[in-house]
């Protein structure tokens, strides 16, 4: 078996380089290149409009407000003189408003679309993964990836990418203007940039680990909650609420710790960037003030630089936030991509053979299989099942019956030997085709929330209402369904919690029939169903199984007595094969099982447990 310290905990993330992550993230934007371009144009317009305004202000100040021409003139004259500037200024503001709105709207919608793309792809990808993957991966963890981790990327796409380009453009525009007006002055203002670079580097180191840890703990927490709420009744029956809360608090505390480290990093970074903004102002005053006194520059220019100084730090601050967004996104996307990179261990060959119908036989040829390494649970099985045969598989619990059916459906690949369907190795068949030929009532019944009808047809449009009803009536489910409010449309709650176990089994059974398979596998399909109903089902099935192949696993021998072939499994091997009568004559394992079930306890005692002990 797998040795996992903690199923909720993460496996090591495969190390993906930052650049690689980034490249893949950008890949998701590709389908929306057009929009991004429009967004960029819009941001250019907005930034342009916004950054020209200080020039206007300088013009107004130097040419009018601070000029002798307007000194001590009356109100009207001054207003009239400034009229042009004012109109232009307002127009630019409006342009900015419009462009900003459009950009923001477009980009946010794009973000939503990208999230959708990613989510659906990821969801589909996970469904392609092999069954063994789900054995060792908590559902809650997968949920976190599909829902929360993808959501954490939203901001990056919705605003991060385009806005940071916008911010950079804004920065460059301002720089250019500063240099145009006075390159020396510009250089002085930009002197604070190295501080920012250092801060950023420091921040990256600090926050990256915190974010990673934070996402990891989130995933753990989700998985824990998912499982424990799922098993709540068990929890309550065992009075384990306090201990569960304690365990949860432990996870929550670790989550808090990681979050606090992120908070520390963030609280440090933001003010630092603002601080550098303030420093720039000080430098401007120190240098610019001197220049004004020496009459090298005008006071209007000083003012413009002060405004630019402030403005310069807007995009910078924005960039710092966007950088933060990127770091968060990296931490999440690392997890998402790791999952995307998990290759299904069971894959269809590119030249896989289609199969339209099952016509001949199923053959197990010296099949060896282990779930883990060489702990073989199926040991050299040879078995042929002809089309139309009813084959029963019996044996002690844990002897490998369910495993056998898992292998036939190719949920797991075998280590040695071959499983052939109509002479073709299942590994060479199209997986969907193979599985479509088979319908299986699994030992563990799972119902989806929705309606009864939907649980029978599983949303498949190919199955008509009549077929659904027919399937339900064969398994005798029609009686209780008829008593439900809404009948076939009656609501099924999560996990089918409003049905009795037997009823759930009946629905799952009906599902298998509705899919009209060539091969029907019943893995303890009637284990929780009363005998009377079971007998009725058997009668109904007889008709239905005509011409179909069925594999029936059962502990209650009454279910399988008239099978064409009974296979007795023991510890992964086939010990006996034959008809009921043959096997009874053989007086082997089957005979003893039979005795136990149909004779009284007295006989059980006299039989002695040694004789049967071998069967378990």
């Amino acid at each position: 078996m797998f040795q996992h310290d903690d199923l909720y905990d993460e496996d090591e993330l495969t190390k993906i380089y930052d650049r690689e992550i980034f490249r893949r993230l950008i890949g998701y934007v590709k389908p929306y290149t057009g929009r991004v371009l429009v967004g960029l144009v819009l941001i250019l317009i907005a930034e342009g409009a916004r950054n020209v305004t200080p020039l206007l202000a300088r013009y107004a100040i130097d040419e009018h407000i601070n000029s002798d021409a307007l000194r001590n003139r009356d109100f009207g004259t001054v207003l009239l003189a400034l009229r042009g500037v004012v109109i232009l200024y307002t127009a630019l503001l409006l342009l900015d408003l419009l462009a900003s709105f459009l950009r923001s709207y477009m980009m946010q919608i794009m973000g939503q679309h990208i999230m959708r793309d990613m989510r659906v792809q990821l969801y589909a990808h996970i469904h392609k993964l092999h069954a063994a993957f789900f054995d060792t991966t908590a559902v809650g963890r997968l949920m976190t990836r599909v829902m929360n981790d993808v959501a954490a990327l939203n901001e990056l796409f919705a605003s991060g990418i385009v806005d940071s380009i916008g911010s950079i453009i804004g920065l460059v525009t301002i720089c250019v203007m500063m240099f145009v007006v006075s390159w020396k002055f510009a250089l002085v203002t930009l002197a604070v940039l190295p501080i920012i670079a250092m801060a950023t580097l420091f921040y990256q180191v600090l926050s990256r680990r915190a974010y990673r840890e934070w996402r990891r703990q989130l995933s753990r927490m989700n998985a824990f909650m998912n499982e424990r709420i799922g098993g709540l009744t068990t929890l309550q029956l065992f009075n384990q609420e306090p201990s569960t809360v304690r365990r949860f608090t432990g996870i929550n505390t670790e989550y808090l710790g990681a979050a606090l480290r992120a908070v520390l990093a963030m609280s440090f970074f933001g003010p630092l960037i603002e601080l550098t903004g303030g420093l720039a102002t000080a430098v401007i005053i120190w240098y610019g003030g001197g220049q004004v006194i020496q009459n090298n520059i005008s006071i209007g220019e000083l003012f413009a630089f002060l405004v630019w100084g402030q403005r310069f730090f807007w995009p910078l601050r924005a960039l710092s936030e966007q950088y933060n967004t990127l770091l968060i996104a990296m931490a999440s996307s690392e997890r998402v991509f790791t999952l995307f990179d998990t290759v299904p261990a069971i894959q269809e060959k590119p030249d896989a053979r289609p199969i339209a119908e099952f016509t001949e036989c199923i053959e197990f040829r010296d099949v060896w299989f282990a779930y883990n390494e060489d702990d073989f649970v199926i040991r050299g099985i040879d078995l042929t099942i002809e089309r139309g045969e009813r084959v029963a598989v019996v044996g002690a619990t844990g002897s490998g019956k369910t495993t056998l059916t898992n292998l036939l459906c190719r949920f797991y690949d075998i280590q040695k030997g071959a499983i052939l369907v109509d002479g073709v190795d299942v590994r060479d068949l199209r997986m969907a085709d193979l599985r479509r030929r088979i319908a299986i009532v699994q030992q563990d019944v799972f119902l989806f929330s929705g309606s009864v009808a939907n649980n029978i047809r599983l949303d498949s449009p190919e199955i008509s209402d009549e077929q659904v009803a027919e399937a339900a009536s064969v398994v005798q489910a029609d009686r209780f369904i008829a008593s439900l409010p809404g009948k076939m449309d009656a609501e099924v709650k999560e996990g089918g919690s409003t049905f009795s176990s037997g009823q759930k089994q009946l629905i799952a059974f009906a599902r298998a029939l509705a899919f009209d398979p060539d091969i029907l596998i019943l893995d303890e399909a009637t284990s929780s169903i009363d005998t009377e109903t079971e007998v009725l089902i058997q009668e109904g099935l007889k008709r239905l199984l005509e011409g179909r192949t069925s594999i029936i696993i059962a502990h209650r021998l009454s279910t399988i007595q008239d099978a064409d072939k009974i296979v007795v499994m023991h510890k992964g091997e086939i010990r006996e094969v034959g008809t009921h009568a043959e096997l009874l004559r053989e007086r082997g394992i089957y005979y003893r099982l039979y005795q136990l079930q149909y004779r009284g306890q007295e006989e059980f005692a006299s039989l002695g447990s040694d004789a049967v002990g071998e069967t378990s």
Partner: protein
Amino acid sequence: MWEGPRVIGSLRSLFPYIKLHRHIILGSLVLLAVTEGFAFYTTVVLRNAIDSLRPGAAAALSVGGYALLLFALVIVQGGTRFGSRYMMGRSSRHIEYAVRNDFFAHVLTLEPAYYVRQNTGDLISRAINDLNAVRQMLGRTLMFASSSTIRVPVAVGFLAAINWKLMLITLVPFVALPFTMQRMSSGIHSMFESIQEQFATMSNRVREGFTGVRVMKAYTREADEESAFLAMNEEFIDRNRKLIRLEATIFPVIMFLPGVSFVLLLWIGGYYVASGEMTFGQFTQFQMVMMMLVMPMAMFGFMWSGVQRGAASMGRLNDILTQEPEIRDEVEVTGEEPAIQGRITFANLSFAYDDGTAILDDLTLDIPAGATVAIIGPTGCGKSTLANLVPRLYQAEPGMVMVDGRDVREYSLKHLRANVGYVQQESFLFSDSISDNLRFGDPDADDHALREVSRVAHLLPEIEDFPGGFSTELGERGMMISGGQRQRTSIARSLLRRPRIVIMDDAFASVDTYTEETILTNLRGYLDDITVILISHRISTVKGADTIVVLDDGGIAEQGTHEELLASGGFYADLYEKQRLQEELEAL
């Protein structure tokens, strides 16, 4: 739409948590105020610096001095701002932490009937996403709210001091700002609520899609599932669209209105400077102070939107938090509770689930302590329902279900459940090791006890066969062992607590007859005088019981020993015949 009362109502439950962290929050706000103070003082210094540049101006400091002063101010501000943010961030995280702990603890107190109505994915989504939204609201809103309340009046004061007429004129657009914001953000509450709802619906879909992955695969439903999920995502986008439109408007407007103010400043202020009524330094300071107003004013609007989001989410949390558990301790337990002997009495028991259809109707049954009673009956007749009533997973009217002659409601849940070993029909195992699962009810049990119950449940040989032995991991829901192994693990787990009453609900459905017999024999040796209720469809399971009860149509159809029932020729005899008949037909 004025959503104030609704918002406050939702947020009220947050107050006690805030109160718990009030010192740090207060500290953070004080630091914030200090930061603000410094920021204003900076504008004063800046004005003086610029005014000192005028030819012939009498300056208190040289340009270098001013620059140095500014520099010092900036550093101090950086420090206080950091402190303030960190403290606020910290306390909002701590609040989130506390709420989440309480939320989860509360979730665990709710009875199974509640979970019939409530989806797990939705609950988790509330605990994570909604709480996130609440925390964001807390941190940001509190921060912005206080910074705005400090900043706005001071800034307005400053502006008035410089030139009150100019202030009045330039502030017109500013005043419009919060109102515009408020107007625009109305309805965010319900929009956000519907978005969160859809998110939860999707979470739930994903949850079921993965939990039921084996069904999906077996029936090759993956492609259709993908398109169904896609449709849900489209719906999610649709629900987001309105909110996005709204929020996309907000920021540009925030930038626009103060822009207009600046135009006014340039225009009218220009006149004042030209006319000599204002120095240029004052003009500059005016502009800077005005800029300081942009964010806080806008924040009033933002905040409102944030508060509404937060409130919508808090409302969703409250939905759960205010849900009182219906099944809880009803008596004040003082001292030691009486040891449970194991007599179980159902007295005129009638029971219906939420939907109202009666499942059990006037059922009376007395099970003496130490007896073994078997219950048999058709699918869906109410066997599990009856069993659920003993450990109070569901509960009937008072006086209908008694243990040792006392209403089950008169015991504490803890005591009652500790004495009832209920092996449910569907075993739920946790993704821990086999030993953790066995120890589930008694974490302190020693290895010897573990081996002992494993032996009783006829599980020991198999565990010893596993390469990992007792530390074998079972996988989520125990999917890494066979169905029969799961069932036996669940039996062993219940026995470890040495309960006085054992209820086995179809607990042998997935094991072979030999194993079943062995367990039943072992059980008697392990726990001697306990009361046992066996629910089964198999004659072989029930035939040895002291009393066999045939349940049908909500009541007891037949009752007696195996022989009595066979003799009476009713349902049981018929059932027996059905199994006998087959045997005889096939017998050699």
